[in-house]
């Protein structure tokens, strides 16, 4: 907020937290898919788990639009010069292609695809949307932080006078990114060699509270709710 003159967005902490949550849920889905497909956990991580988390992911993708629009409409409608400069820098100006990509990857594509039951109630559907959301969130972070840090010398002004052009990443930036992501994956994989990736005692507890039984002419699931 302090770096771009006029960018006073009280909703930003919540937007940022929500986008992080959305990305977090997506990486969990991706991890679940890898565990299901390659980790040998087909029994433990099945369609039920993907269906449940897919609903959460869908809700978060819709919420992405709501948080973005809540910030945007205030700035757009107020039409204060300082706020118009912020909108130009972050949305309609040099970062327009990234914004459009983010909009599509974080909201539009998930909305149009996850609204279909066959896609949402599947294993591959939420996984593909997770990849879309992760790329979209990465681009969104670039848009917000690179733009903000590129105007720091204008900070004492009341509004942006010159909209700086977009900064493209250099080879070193890309290498740091790839290295960072690889490092995280490496740490995670090493951790899975030390600790069990599935919580065993909770799985055992679930066996106590969940079973199938015959209900007259059909079979139903009985789920216990201890308190």
């Amino acid at each position, binding site marked *: *907020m302090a770096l771009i003159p006029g960018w006073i967005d*009280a*909703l930003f902490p*919540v937007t940022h937290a929500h986008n992080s949550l959305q990305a977090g849920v997506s990486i969990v889905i991706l991890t679940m898919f890898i565990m299901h497909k390659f980790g040998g956990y087909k029994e433990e991580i099945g369609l039920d788990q993907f269906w449940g988390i897919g609903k959460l992911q869908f809700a978060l993708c819709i919420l992405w639009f*709501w948080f973005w629009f809540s910030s945007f409409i205030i700035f757009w409608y*107020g039409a204060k010069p300082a706020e118009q400069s912020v909108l130009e820098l972050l949305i309609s100006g040099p970062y327009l292609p990234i914004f459009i990509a983010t909009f599509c990857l974080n909201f539009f594509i998930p909305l149009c695809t996850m609204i279909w039951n066959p896609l949402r109630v599947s294993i591959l559907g939420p996984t593909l949307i997770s990849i879309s959301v992760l790329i979209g969130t990465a681009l969104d972070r670039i848009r917000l932080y690179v733009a903000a840090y590129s105007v720091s010398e204008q900070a004492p002004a009341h509004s942006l006078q010159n909209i700086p052009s977009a900064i493209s990443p250099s080879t070193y930036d890309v290498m740091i990114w790839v290295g960072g992501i690889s490092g995280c994956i490496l740490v995670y994989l090493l951790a899975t060699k030390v600790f069990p990736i599935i919580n065993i005692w909770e799985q055992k507890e679930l066996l106590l509270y969940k079973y199938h*039984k015959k209900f007259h002419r059909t079979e139903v699931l009985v789920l216990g709710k201890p*308190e």
Partner: protein
Amino acid sequence: MQEHTQLTQKQINDDLLRSVFTVPRWWPGSTLILLLIFIAGACAFGYMINKGLGVTGLNRPAYWGVYIVNFVFWIGISHAGIMVSAILRLTQAEWRRPITRAAEVLTVFSLTSALMAAPLTHVGRQWRVLYWVFPYDFARGVWPNVRSPFVWDPSAVMTYLIASTLFVLICLVPDLAIIRDRSKGLRKKIYSVLSLGWRGTPRQWKLQTVAGILLSALVLPVFASVHSIVSWDFAVQIGPEAWHSTIFAPYFIIGAIHSGVSAVATLMVVMVWAWGYKTYITPDHLDAIGRLLIVVAVTWFFFFFLEWIYALYTLEFGELAMRELQVFSWPYGALFILFLFTAFLIPVPMWLFRNIRRSYLWMFITTILVNIGMWLERFLIIVPGVIRRGELMFNWGTYHPSIIEILMVLATFGWMMFGLLVFSKIFPLVPLFDVKEGMVGRDEIKIGRRTVPASIRE
């Protein structure tokens, strides 16, 4: 839900239809009192139409007063139904069953109270409302101004009102069939028409279940949009300093959920005390809603904190002066303290105790306190915002609501409660088929010496 009494369908019908087939002793007197309150407000309204808005406390610069406060308050309460009904239905929370219809009906009547509060009372020349809201060129090619939040408002509120009403009606059909089957004569004919010939085939029941889930999923986005749009009435303006903030939409929504769910909890206690539904609305239900209220209240407080921290951090003169007016000047300072204590500082620490959450009396008291606090919250956003003596303002003034405004505010409360009581006479407040489904779907799991309650899922 540890406390449970397994009942037969006949017992459930007897208990829950008693309010429809008999008249409780307290009903006629209460209904009459509420109707009189509403009529008093209607008379005040008539007087205001005749004499003009000058009979209210509204004047330069306080163009917005308790009518708008009341409007936002009732829109907030209306979020109760959807929060309880839709979200709990989608998450398959079993404890929602006895309270969904009461919450949905609370939504419908709250929305009508909200419509009374703003379009019918605040606008001054009520007969002209239709011209600037209804999408038709009544004269000179002038259509509603689509770019105005005051045109977004009616589109959202009417959509929400229609959706909530249809939600209530669709879910009522199976219960209307029960009343039809127990009635005779003219009542039977009327309920036969209302129940649309419902027979209870598997197809009809399946569609009821799908209807509940589908309508819940469709109404939830409308619920989010309604109060966002109402909040943008304030937030898009650049005049009053404290209003132009991006946080207004989620802040208003979480505030609406806070006051709405509190209103549902109040209603739950009233249903137990007035109609004797103790078998259906147990301390377990109050405990569940109390825990939900803790989460909602803490989230609300976070948004409240965010709003203030962003206002103060920038050290802008206008914002600081505005906050000073809200907190340190009379009477707003006293109201601010009262609001903080009633909306959060008293109820939430109390709800942390299980005995309080399971007590009908304490839940009634704390949830009423919350709604007093939330009404004051809206007052403290709106009135100091309009009367603050900003730069280039040529009108300095204060705001005191007149007796006319007070009567009309009371009339909205009277109307809402009157509507609920009349509804309870014609339709059952507790959804019978939902409760029966819960009974059918209930099971137990024996683990050693312990018996754990369970529910059946398809």
